[in-house]
């Protein structure tokens, strides 16, 4: 039990960290797509090997995730279909294929297929000793890579043009980040499930953004939020046998998001109110007028963006 708790915490930590970079590069929903795309990979790995070894699943899901990334890139580059529709197409067709394969496995003559659908919603409790070990090692590797390549990833996320200018292999680092995200998603699937694992990539990063304007701090905060959510999900699901881990982890992450939204020290609602009031006091009347025009502008922009 303790080991499962530790591995869920590590999972949350690593995907929180990776999530920061994907949030800054405006690729949050890629995590969702990659996670859905992993399902056929898992099914094919099971059909080929006939075992439920997590290592094979990781390889299958990873390959499927890479195929999905290339598929999206290919569709957007060679047609006029936009990025979001390309993601939707790849996501749903991979997931459809995965479900077809899943039903084939269930109806076919494979012996020990029971539990394959645990991957849909995640069941941390079904992990065995070797799974825990593999997942923990992979998570630690992710964290280590991010630690050592932090400077490069930072530059690539904020100003890829400049990075290219000073001679960084930007394309390589972008692919590496994408690959790390595939790994983080695939590793998270066991604990959180195909459908909800994207939340571990997105929500902690968004929450961390409310607390700081510095990437270094944001990565740490996001990692901690992810770790807390992972641990909370594992603990809560172990108390009642029938509860899947995934939704609980997601709700823990969402609760942290809600707290950050309200109390975040940099952009939280309450903090903003305080800053506004302070401004009002120091600036007197002029500021209110300004604020009124600003809000009209704001509304016009909003209408236009719809």
């Amino acid at each position: 039990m303790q080991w499962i708790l530790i591995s869920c915490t590590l999972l949350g930590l690593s995907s929180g960290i990776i999530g920061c970079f994907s949030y800054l590069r405006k690729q949050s929903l890629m995590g969702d797509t990659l996670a859905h795309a992993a399902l056929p990979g898992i099914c094919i790995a099971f059909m080929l090997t006939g075992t439920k070894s997590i290592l094979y699943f990781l390889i299958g899901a990873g390959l499927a995730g890479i195929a999905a990334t290339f598929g999206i890139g290919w569709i957007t580059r060679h047609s006029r279909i936009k990025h979001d529709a390309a993601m939707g197409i790849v996501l749903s067709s991979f997931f459809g294929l995965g479900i077809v394969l899943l039903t084939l496995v269930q109806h076919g003559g494979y012996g020990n297929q029971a539990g394959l659908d645990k991957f849909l919603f995640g069941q941390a409790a079904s992990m065995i000793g070797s799974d825990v070990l593999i997942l923990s090692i992979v998570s630690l590797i992710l964290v280590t890579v991010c630690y050592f390549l932090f400077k490069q990833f930072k530059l690539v996320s904020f100003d890829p043009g400049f990075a290219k200018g000073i001679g960084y292999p930007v394309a390589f680092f972008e692919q590496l980040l994408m690959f790390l995200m595939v790994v983080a998603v695939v590793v998270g699937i066991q604990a959180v499930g195909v459908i909800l694992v994207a939340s571990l990539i997105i929500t902690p990063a968004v929450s961390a953004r409310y607390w700081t304007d510095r990437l270094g701090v944001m990565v740490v905060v996001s990692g901690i939020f992810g770790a807390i959510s992972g641990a909370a999900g594992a603990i809560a699901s172990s108390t009642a046998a029938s509860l899947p881990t995934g939704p609980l982890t997601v709700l823990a992450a969402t609760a942290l998001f809600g707290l950050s939204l309200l109390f975040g020290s940099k952009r939280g609602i309450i903090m903003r109110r305080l800053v506004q009031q302070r401004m009002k006091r120091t600036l007197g009347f002029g500021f209110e007028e300004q604020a009124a025009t600003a809000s009209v502008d704001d509304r016009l922009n909003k209408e236009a963006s719809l």
Partner: protein
Amino acid sequence: MSDFWILLTGVLVASCSGILGTFLVLRKMAMIGDAISHSVMPGIVIAFLLSGSRDSLLMMVAAMACGLFAVFLIQLFQNKGVQADASIGVVFTALFAIGVLLVSLFARQVHLDQDAILYGEIAYVHWNTWMVNGVDLGPKAVWLLGITLIIIVTVISLFYKQFKLCSFDPALAAACGIPVALFHYLLMGMVSMATVSSFESVGAILVVGMLIIPAATAYLLTDRLSAMILLSVGVGILSVFGGYGAAVMLDASIAGCIVCAAALLFALAFLFSPSHGIVAKKLRLRKLAA
């Protein structure tokens, strides 16, 4: 007879989502469709727990409310400075998690399991029929989808011009005095409605496939909105027939096969479309070079 009802259900799902998907693809809101289809979950489960049946009006209303609530939240976070796709991700995972949690908490009381949510139960559509005074009026799902389709067709054809302008040039539409936000939420409401009524037959996740893939296929085949809507519905219907045939042969999930068939049609259009296909583009380049 069961084949007929299954295919009819599929055709109705394809028509509803084909029409709405066109607008989602044009307005670059494909992933919002995905988000809505996940977010209606808690509404469906709560209505189910309250009413105890899966085809009440309450379910429709609750699910629509959830879908609109999700759209509203996404917009709210976006205005607060969260990136667009991140706010989509935060909202729909949270709502879907609530739904799944409710299902697993009350799994014993209710007749609603996780498999049904994911894959749908299009194969059992004809078992759940609507009886009035002992007269069999056909499957309830067909009625529900039929009504949804009528509403969608009515609204879209009444406000066709407005929807068209809002999809292509929202700023101009706002300047002309069209209430852009109202039409935005109207479209989102219809997407939620289509999702809920298709949910039972094709499952929460594959609705997205039916919303986006046929519409994107049609987008590659034509430059006219009206033609795109018709083509999108046509592609959807074609994939329903193809997918059902494949599913019967393979003994696999019908909904999954339908989405795979749609993906196959998309791949064909992507390669061989006369106007926007890769092969046609290559040929044109060669002709220019020669």
